[in-house]
């Protein structure tokens, strides 16, 4: 059974972290990242060719982590697979002991290192969620054929409170819950005010009672990274005061400042009604996760 699910069901504030697979076939890279995260987080979320750059498959990397005794969250994007491949991979993932799945549309192929490919987008992320829920709860695939055994999965979806239009963001969250999301992982939060208004709009519709919302955070390494994310990554909202804070410290203290901002953000998120956990996306900086979790007072992680 999903460790993450058990933590959330017990009412603990959950902690997950991201692990990006390598641009190569070396399993040690994945296992090393897994070791950095062991006992620091409840589940490890493995990205699926993020930013449309070819990497070791998420399914394979999850399998490595699962065998190492961690609870992986398999990310799957609809960009690269049609409904045959998606449903087949879900059955395979469940068969090898993966218990968490995050259903995403995926970064557009034009951003990556295969810009001449075609995006599949046979299903969208909401249709995909619905298909997975039907597989698990009804034991049927799209079209109604019955499965000999249903997959056992805790199903997640993403939400970006910072993209437009704000009012419709909550409608879309409601659609994802209706489609089958058990948990939600949000885009990185730097603008806490906007996040708070999104969550209160969601509360008006009673949504946080129906789904576990994990709030996303990413520690900044430098003011350059902050500026890049603000201007080049769509749907990323970084207030100027965050960038000014990063600029206001000497270069050798910038990473420390990034961690400090991240910890402060988590401390505020912990107190926010409707937020059930935090998802830490330390991009190629997994060794920062332990320190962040510790300074945010989230250690030791509860066992089951």
């Amino acid at each position, binding site marked *: 059974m999903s460790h993450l699910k058990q933590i959330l069901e017990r009412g603990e504030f959950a902690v997950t972290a991201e692990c990006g697979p390598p641009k190569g076939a070396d399993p040690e890279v994945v296992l090393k990242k897994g070791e950095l995260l062991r006992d620091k987080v409840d589940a490890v979320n493995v990205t699926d060719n993020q930013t449309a750059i070819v990497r070791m498959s998420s399914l394979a990397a999850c399998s490595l982590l699962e065998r190492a005794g961690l609870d992986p969250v398999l990310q799957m994007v609809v*960009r690269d697979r049609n409904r045959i491949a998606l449903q087949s991979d879900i059955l395979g993932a469940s068969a090898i002991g993966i218990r968490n799945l995050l259903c995403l*549309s995926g970064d557009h192929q*034009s951003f990556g290192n295969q810009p001449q490919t075609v995006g599949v987008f*046979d299903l969208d992320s909401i*249709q995909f969620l619905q298909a997975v829920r039907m597989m698990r709860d009804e034991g049927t695939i799209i079209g109604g054929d019955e499965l000999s055994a249903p997959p056992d999965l805790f199903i997640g979806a993403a939400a970006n409170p*910072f*993209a437009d239009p704000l009012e*419709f963001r909550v409608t879309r969250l*409601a659609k994802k819950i209706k489609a089958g999301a058990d948990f939600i992982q949000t885009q990185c939060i730097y603008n806490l005010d906007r996040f708070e208004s999104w969550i209160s709009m969601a509360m008006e519709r009673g949504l946080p009672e129906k789904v576990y919302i994990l709030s996303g955070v990413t520690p900044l390494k430098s003011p350059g990274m902050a500026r890049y994310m603000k201007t080049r990554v769509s*749907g990323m909202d970084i207030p100027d005061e965050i960038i000014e804070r990063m600029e206001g410290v000497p270069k050798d203290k910038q990473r420390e400042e990034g961690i400090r901002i991240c910890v402060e953000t988590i401390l505020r998120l912990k107190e926010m009604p409707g937020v059930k956990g935090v998802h830490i996306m330390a991009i190629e900086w997994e060794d920062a996760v332990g320190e962040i979790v510790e300074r945010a007072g989230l250690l030791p992680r509860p066992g089951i």
Partner: protein
Amino acid sequence: MITAEQKPIDEIRGMIAPYKRILVLGCASCVAECAAGGEKETAMLGSALRMAARMEKQEVEIEEKTLDRQCVNEFIVLLDDIIDKYDAILSLGCGAGVQAVADMFPETPVIPALNTEFLGETKSQGLWVENCLGCGDCMLYYFGGVCPLARCSKQLFNGPCGGSVNGKCEINPDLDCAWQLIIDRLSAFGALDRLEEIYPPKDWSKKQGGGPRKIVREDQQR
């Protein structure tokens, strides 16, 4: 209409190089409307090819003709009497026109001079946009007259994705977010609640998923 753009002249010259007597064949329908393969463009391409051949002292006969429609047999048969004069046809029809002409004359090479692009709308002089993919199962009612298949970069039927910012698409700041347009239009006529429902997976068998498509209308057949 079908939109197209002319291929680079060097690519065209490479393809026609083996032939001595060439018919440059225009089409007065869609590709004339988008200024790629009508009578005027056919004359211009013919002249350019003749001039290039003269510069390189090649002996080539290049003549032009434009059919009203290259994709309809009634017009293609007008070539019956002259086809024997040529080694090859350089077609400025769309991909359908090229193949229709080739079907009629199995022994004559038919070479495309255009890259066929999309089912387009003439937005303004010199600007054509793709708003329809011909999916065989029109969904425009549900989406307020804006097609998410043609106009959303991720083809989301339950959008918008997290990359919609200030009404623009994340892949290109010049591109409108189709989902912002859908939401704006449905809001304008009070039908936003249509989007509360999950739009089900698309039946691609009505598009190219079921193999090449054809329409059979017995009432139209003689």
